[in-house]
């Protein structure tokens, strides 16, 4: 089933036992972030958190860790909450085959209930803002969908973008935004700034759970996120025009913030504890002037804690990073079986593939580096055989233990591109990259002494079912 807004998803999480209401009074700092920091440590069935009794606020409602477990991710996609990870990725791939599904324009969005305009705009009066990590430069918004258009081709709906970027609150109507050069909004801003113009944006918070997933999916520049949302939901994504900019925004959002990225302006921003588990340094970044806020009555502030993995962000950008890489690799290499790019947004990528001939696995690994996402992320690629499950790390370690000989299986390529946040780069944005071939050599590559591999007994699969049934009725 498809959720049209955050509130209906929170209700569903509660029915499934996946929402924890914290009713005790808590401090805005450090309690809210510390609780969300801790929640994923409860494991793959960790719940979302909901707070409505925060010191000093009269009307705060805060939802965190909404996508922060495999159980919650499954429910966001309308799957049973115990769906295994590999199965969730396979279902994601299957539904992407229905892309594109055009969005549905819907009247009377709930966020039209209240507005603030111009000088009366004060984001602090709408959202119970708070700090996440000790060294953060301020209060951030980091789970909002930012909508913008290609200023040189504004009618092209594919080149329109919906993305999640880090946003620092710098004043009642002033925000900062980070457009990493590999991301679509950076291309929009680049075009606007070349022309000496501002870039209009609409920032929508508290979205239905699939909007957050598609907004953090590394789609191609001319692919429309709402059309992927429709495919994943199995129903068109409901959208409505934002009142000031006309940009298409999710109908079900809690809050819609509109304004412009002021062209050719930069100002100190950060640091911010990032998805890499490290702080980015303070940098000079673009500034947003807010001109209008529209919001539901008693809006829910959905926020995301991120830090040393795994945290909510790692669940949010796990399946949706694996799938585009799988699709792009199999276009040329149908031998590819599965792609696991869920470690730190694909800074490490594990691919399982059949071999066409000796040396083939290395070509698959090199192709990962030149996919659009690989250009900015993949720094280490591990290639394993077709019978190794890349989502099963003990199996991957077995492949590394027995198939990989550093004399011929490590390919190091100097000075490739990587996003500037990658901490291991000698200079920000440039790093060496590594492909590890942990596949069994095949002719004409005659290395090692493999003989015959031990395989699962043919009867083992039936016994697994039988043992599960017996265990369930203990």
């Amino acid at each position: 089933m498809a959720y049209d807004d955050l509130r209906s998803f929170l209700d569903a999480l509660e029915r499934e036992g996946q929402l924890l209401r914290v009713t005790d009074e808590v401090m805005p700092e450090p309690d809210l972030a510390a609780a969300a920091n801790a929640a994923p440590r409860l494991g793959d069935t960790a719940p979302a958190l909901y707070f409505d009794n925060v010191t000093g606020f009269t009307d705060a409602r805060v939802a965190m860790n909404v996508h922060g477990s495999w159980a919650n991710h499954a429910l966001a996609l309308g799957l049973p909450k115990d769906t295994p990870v590999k199965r969730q990725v396979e279902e994601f791939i299957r539904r992407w085959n229905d892309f594109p599904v055009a969005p549905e324009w819907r009247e009377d969005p709930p966020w039209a209930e209240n507005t603030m305009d111009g000088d009366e705009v004060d984001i602090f009066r709408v959202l119970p803002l708070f700090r996440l990590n000790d060294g953060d430069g301020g209060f951030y918004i980091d789970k909002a969908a930012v909508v913008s258009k290609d200023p040189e081709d504004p009618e092209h709906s594919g080149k329109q973008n919906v993305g999640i970027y880090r946003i620092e609150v710098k004043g009642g109507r002033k925000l900062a935004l980070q457009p990493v050069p590999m991301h679509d909004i950076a291309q929009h801003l680049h075009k606007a700034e070349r022309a000496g113009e501002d870039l209009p944006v609409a920032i929508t918070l508290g979205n239905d759970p699939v909007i957050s997933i598609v907004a953090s999916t590394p789609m191609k520049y001319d692919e429309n996120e709402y059309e992927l949302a429709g495919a994943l939901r199995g129903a068109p994504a409901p959208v409505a025009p934002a009142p000031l900019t006309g940009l298409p925004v999710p109908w079900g959002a809690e809050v819609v913030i509109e304004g412009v990225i002021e062209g050719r302006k930069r100002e100190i921003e950060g640091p911010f504890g990032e998805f890499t588990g490290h702080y980015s340094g303070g940098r000079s970044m673009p500034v947003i002037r807010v001109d209008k806020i529209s919001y539901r009555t008693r809006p829910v502030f959905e926020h995301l804690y991120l830090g040393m993995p795994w945290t909510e962000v790692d669940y949010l950008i796990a399946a949706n990073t694996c799938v585009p890489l799988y699709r792009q690799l199999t276009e040329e290499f149908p031998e590819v079986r599965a792609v696991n790019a869920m470690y730190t947004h694909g800074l490490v990528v594990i691919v399982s593939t059949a071999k066409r001939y000796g040396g083939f696995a290395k070509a698959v690994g090199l192709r990962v580096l030149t996919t659009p996402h690989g250009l900015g992320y993949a720094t280490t690629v591990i290639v394993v055989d077709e019978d190794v499950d890349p989502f099963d790390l003990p199996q991957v370690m077995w492949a590394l233990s027995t198939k990989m000989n550093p004399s011929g299986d490590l390919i190091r390529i100097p000075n490739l591109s990587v996003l500037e946040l990658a901490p291991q780069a000698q200079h920000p944005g440039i790093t060496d990259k590594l492909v590890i071939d942990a596949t069994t050599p095949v002719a004409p590559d005659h290395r090692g002494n493999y003989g015959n591999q031990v395989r699962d007994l043919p009867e083992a699969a039936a016994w697994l079912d039988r043992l599960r049934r017996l265990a369930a009725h203990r």
Partner: protein
Amino acid sequence: MSEKTPGNTSEKTVCPRCAHPAIARLFTSPVPGVWDVLQCEQCLYCWRTSEPARRTSRAAYPDGFKLTAEDIRDAPEVPAVPPLRDAR
């Protein structure tokens, strides 16, 4: 404003991060008198007066997060501002 800042009654409030003396008030708690949100006018660091000392007091602020005026002036531009497209 320093007399309203918990745990900081004797010294004048400066930015915990860059020690700049000019501090602005961005917001006050909806429940009166509980906390304020302050902001440094030099480095734009923003904090709530009810946060732990490690985030609000210059003396307790970790050295690793401190910024100088030079750090702010020399911060790299991300992304770089492109040249203007020439109007032919």
